[in-house]
């Protein structure tokens, strides 16, 4: 196994470590898109140009203090096997586009996994800072410092009027995308989610499932992010998003309280069935695992379980994914066998706790 991947897998995924939690916001992320001046964007770059970009960014990242070096890890995507690539996406350190890139691509990851710099995704650099809980301001401080440090080493494509130049005009200007992952079972169960999503869209923000566009509301998880990147400062974009997030958190909490008060047995049934499924199943798909785990997460947040903590829920959330599951078993398995193994993982973990 790749030694860097082995090191990452020794620890829980950083975005799910326990943080001061409001019970709704799971994680916060900010990413910045940057390109190197004078080199075609990855989509139009030749393999030689792509290799040069990887080398340049690698050099810049290996300077002391940049993204937590010397503890920083650097992965050439071609050097990883399929399971290792998947594990990076499951820890949210690489995107699906990066691991399937037709040209040489790479990712630099800080030892604590809070920072990552993807190289040759849609843009030459996609740097991100990822933290558990609702911590956009902290993400911003950290990524602004990283941007300055890398910007001292690398000549970023820049225009005085248009700002940072990106491969897609939807990222132009600040190149900033801030997003928060929210767990909204209260709004889903009470039927208020459609109106909420519609309202968020009207404010010019995007709502997506956790596995990107088109993944629906799997596990009652939603990612909310800004769409506008040009014409507003980074601070103002982040503040506007934060204001909306605070409001949604409030709605979700109210919905949960209301359900507990007015529809207690539906809520208990939802949580109890999820727990029963995960504790007793012998075949478990990723989707069913995520759906049921959402019910358990809700139960834990409402204090319905005595022996089960949010730590176990978070650990299972990453361990259930195909890459992690297969690496742990040290075998590449067909889907049905993954489902059997996943069911075993849940039975074991949840029986330990009951």
């Amino acid at each position, binding site marked *: 196994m790749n030694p860097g991947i082995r090191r990452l897998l020794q620890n829980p995924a950083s975005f799910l470590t326990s943080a001061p939690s409001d019970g709704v916001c799971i994680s916060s992320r900010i990413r910045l898109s940057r390109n190197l*001046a004078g080199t075609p964007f990855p989509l*139009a770059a030749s393999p030689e140009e792509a290799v040069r970009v990887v080398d340049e960014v690698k050099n810049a990242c290996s300077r002391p203090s940049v993204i937590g070096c010397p503890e920083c890890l650097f992965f050439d995507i071609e050097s990883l096997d399929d399971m290792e690539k998947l594990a990076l996406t499951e820890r949210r350190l690489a995107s699906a586009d990066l691991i399937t890139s037709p040209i040489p691509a790479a990712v630099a990851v800080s030892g604590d996994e809070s920072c990552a710099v993807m190289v040759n995704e849609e843009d030459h650099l996609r740097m991100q800072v990822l933290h558990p809980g609702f911590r956009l301001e902290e993400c911003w401080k950290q990524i602004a410092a990283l941007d300055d440090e890398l910007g*001292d080493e690398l000549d970023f494509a820049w225009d005085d009027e248009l*700002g940072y130049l990106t491969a897609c005009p939807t990222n132009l200007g600040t190149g900033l995308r801030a997003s928060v992952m929210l767990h909204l079972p209260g709004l889903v169960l009470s039927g208020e989610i459609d109106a909420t*999503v519609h309202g968020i869209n009207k404010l010019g923000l995007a709502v997506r499932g956790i596995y990107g566009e088109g993944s629906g509301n799997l596990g009652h998880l939603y990612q909310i992010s800004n769409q506008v990147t040009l014409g507003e400062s980074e601070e103002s974009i982040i503040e506007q998003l934060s204001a909306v997030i605070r409001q949604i958190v409030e709605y979700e909490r109210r919905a949960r309280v209301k359900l507990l008060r007015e529809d207690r047995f539906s809520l208990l049934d939802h949580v109890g069935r999820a727990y029963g499924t995960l504790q007793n199943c012998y075949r478990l798909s990723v989707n069913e695992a995520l759906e049921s785990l959402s019910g358990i997460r809700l139960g834990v947040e409402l204090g319905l379980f005595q022996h089960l903590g949010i730590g176990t829920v978070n650990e299972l959330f990453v361990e259930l994914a195909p890459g992690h599951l297969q690496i742990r078993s040290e075998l590449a398995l067909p889907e049905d066998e993954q489902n059997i193994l996943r069911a075993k993982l849940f039975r074991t973990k949840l029986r330990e706790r009951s």
Partner: protein
Amino acid sequence: MLCDKCKKREATIHIKEVHDGKCISTNLCTECAKEKELSGGLGAFGFNLAEVIFNMGKTNGTKSPEEEPQSAEVGEEASSPVCPRCGWTLEKMRKAAGKLGCSECYHTFSKWVGMAVEQVQRGKVHVGRRPRRRGRTLSGIRLEIDRLQLELAAAVSAEEYEKAAQVRDRINALKNELGKLNGEGVRK
């Protein structure tokens, strides 16, 4: 209002598309909109950026492949500018869902990109941080403001008000940044 597609659920998403100068509005419910999105009809922004750019290409005299399958490629290649640095054309941009080939493309295709930016962004001028090496120093920003103020005066006297407004926004953004660097808020 009911959804135009299923005619059952309430429409919550309203799309206005301009085709050949004609405005077509579509009203969809969340589910039908999701379907349309999955089938590639909608981009991340509720519309397909590539189609926006492509439709702009059409109004500029190029033909769509659907209309003239044989000559489309030739027609577009002939009338589209070609980026001198990466060789990108409007057709390539369309195939890449509105993405550009290199930073020079922003100049080569400024007309099309400008229209796309107007659709997806809130402003036309970058406000916010700049690379340190591009002079995020007090004197660097002051010099830039001086230069822009001359540009603003020139634009006003030439009655180019749209350009003047852009330059003014840029000046305000720089003043804002100057204020922050000085640690004393926005200076008038």
